[in-house]
C-alpha cells in the first residue's frame, strides 16, 4: 500500500534521480517496495547500475534482485534483447532455478508466443502445483490473449485455494468491472473490505460499483460507503466527496414526492459540498465556478 508520505518520498526521489542528483539505487528499492510500475525508469537507471561493474559489485547479493527487477521492466518496455542477456547471466549464476524459469516463461509471454509460454508454465507447475506466482501468471496469460472468461475461470479456481490473497480478489473485481458485471464485482469488493477494512480505496471502489448498479437501496448503501471512505481518508479524497453529492442528488430524485424528511442525509450532503468548495478554493481556485455550476446542476446548491 502506498501511503501519502511514501508517495511524496517517491516523487522527490524520482525528481532527484531524473535531474542527475544520484540515489538511483534507493529509488529502485523504493519502487520495488511500493510495487509501482515505472518500467521505463527502472530500466534506464537499473541498466546504468548494472553496466557499472564497481557499482554492481558493491550491491552484494542484492545485485541478483536488481537483475530480476530490471529484466521484468525490460520485458514491459519490449527491450527483449536486454532480457535475453540478463537471463543468460542469471542462468549461469542460478542453474535450474524456478525463479529464472519463470522469467524465461515471461519472456516467451512478452514475445507473444502464447503456446510456448503456456507449456513452460505447465511444466513449472508440474514440479510445484501450488506455486502462487505461476498460477497468477497463467491468469495474466489468458488475459493478455484476450480470453477474459478463461482468466475469470482460472482466477476463481485460484481463489478457491488461496482465499486470503487480496491482490487476486482485486484483479477479479477489476476484470468484472471491465465486463460490466457489477454484482460479481461488488461481491469481490465486499471480500476486500472484509479482509482489509482500513483501506479507504476499497470502500470507494465498492461504493462506485453500488452507485453504478443503481436503485434506492444500493444508492443508500453507496452513500454510506462513500462516507466511510471520507472517514478513513480524513476528508482528503475528492472522489468520495463527489460520490456523496451524486448519491444524495439521485436519492433525492428517486424519493421526490414521497416527502420523506431525511435530515441527516441533507446535512451530510451540505457538509460534503462545503468540503469540496474549501478544497477547490485551496488547490484549484480557477475551477471553482465550474464546481459550483456542476453542483447546481445536481440541485445541491440553491
Amino acid at each position, binding site marked *: *500500500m*502506498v*501511503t*501519502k*508520505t511514501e*508517495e511524496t518520498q517517491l516523487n522527490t526521489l524520482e525528481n532527484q534521480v531524473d535531474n542527475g542528483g544520484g540515489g538511483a539505487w534507493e529509488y529502485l528499492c523504493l519502487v520495488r517496495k*511500493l*510495487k*509501482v*510500475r515505472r*518500467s*521505463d525508469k527502472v*530500466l*534506464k537507471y537499473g*541498466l546504468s547500475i*548494472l*553496466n557499472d561493474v564497481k557499482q554492481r559489485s558493491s550491491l552484494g547479493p542484492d545485485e541478483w534482485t536488481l537483475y530480476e527487477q530490471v529484466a*521484468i521492466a*525490460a*520485458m*514491459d*518496455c*519490449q*527491450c527483449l*534483447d*536486454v532480457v535475453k*542477456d*540478463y537471463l543468460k*547471466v542469471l542462468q549461469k549464476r542460478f542453474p535450474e532455478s524456478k525463479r529464472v524459469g519463470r522469467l524465461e516463461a*515471461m519472456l516467451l*509471454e*512478452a514475445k*507473444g508466443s502464447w503456446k510456448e509460454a503456456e507449456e513452460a508454465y505447465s511444466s513449472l507447475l508440474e514440479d510445484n502445483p501450488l506455486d502462487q*506466482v505461476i498460477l*497468477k*501468471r497463467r*491468469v*495474466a496469460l489468458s*488475459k*493478455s*490473449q484476450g480470453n477474459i472468461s478463461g482468466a475469470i475461470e482460472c482466477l476463481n479456481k485460484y481463489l478457491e485455494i488461496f482465499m486470503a490473497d487480496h*491482490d*487476486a480478489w*482485486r*484483479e477479479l473485481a*477489476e476484470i468484472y468491472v471491465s465486463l460490466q458485471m457489477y454484482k460479481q464485482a461488488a461481491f469481490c469488493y465486499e471480500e476486500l473490505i472484509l479482509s482489509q477494512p*482500513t*483501506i*479507504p*480505496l476499497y470502500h470507494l471502489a465498492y461504493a462506485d460499483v453500488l452507485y453504478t448498479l443503481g436503485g434506492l437501496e444500493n444508492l443508500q448503501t453507496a452513500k454510506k460507503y462513500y462516507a466511510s471512505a471520507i*472517514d*478513513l*481518508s*480524513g*476528508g*482528503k479524497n475528492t472522489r468520495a466527496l463527489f460520490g456523496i453529492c451524486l448519491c444524495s442528488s439521485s436519492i433525492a430524485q428517486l424519493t421526490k414526492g414521497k416527502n420523506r424528511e431525511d435530515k441527516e442525509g441533507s446535512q451530510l450532503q451540505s457538509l460534503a459540498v462545503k468540503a469540496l468548495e474549501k478544497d477547490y478554493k485551496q488547490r484549484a481556485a480557477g475551477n471553482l465556478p465550474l464546481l459550483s455550476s456542476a453542483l447546481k446542476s445536481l440541485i445541491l446548491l440553491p
Partner: protein
Amino acid sequence: MGIGVVVGVLGVLILFHAAYSTIQYRGLLKIMEEEFSGPPMNVVLELLLGLVLSMWAGLTVPGNFLSIHPDSEENRIVSLPANLDFMIFNHRGRVFPLEMNVKLKN
C-alpha cells in the same frame, strides 16, 4: 539522544539512592526502637524526581511516536500498488519502443 540517556541514568541513580536511604532510615528506626510511620521527606522527593526523569527519558530515547490515525499523512493510503503479479506485456508499449541505447555490457 545523548541528553536523554544521561537523564535516564541520572533518574535511575536517584531511584537507587532513594532505596538506599530508605534502608538506612529503617536501620536507624530499629536502633531508636521507633515505629515506622512513613518514609522521610527526602526519600519522597527523590522518588518523585526519579520518576519524572526516568519517564522523560523513557519517552524520548526510544524514538518518536508513530501516528495511529488512519487519516494521518503516514497512514493515509493514496494509491494501491500496481498488481504486478498480473502484469501483462501485451500493451501499447510495443508500439512505442524506447529511444535509448540499452545494451548490457559485461
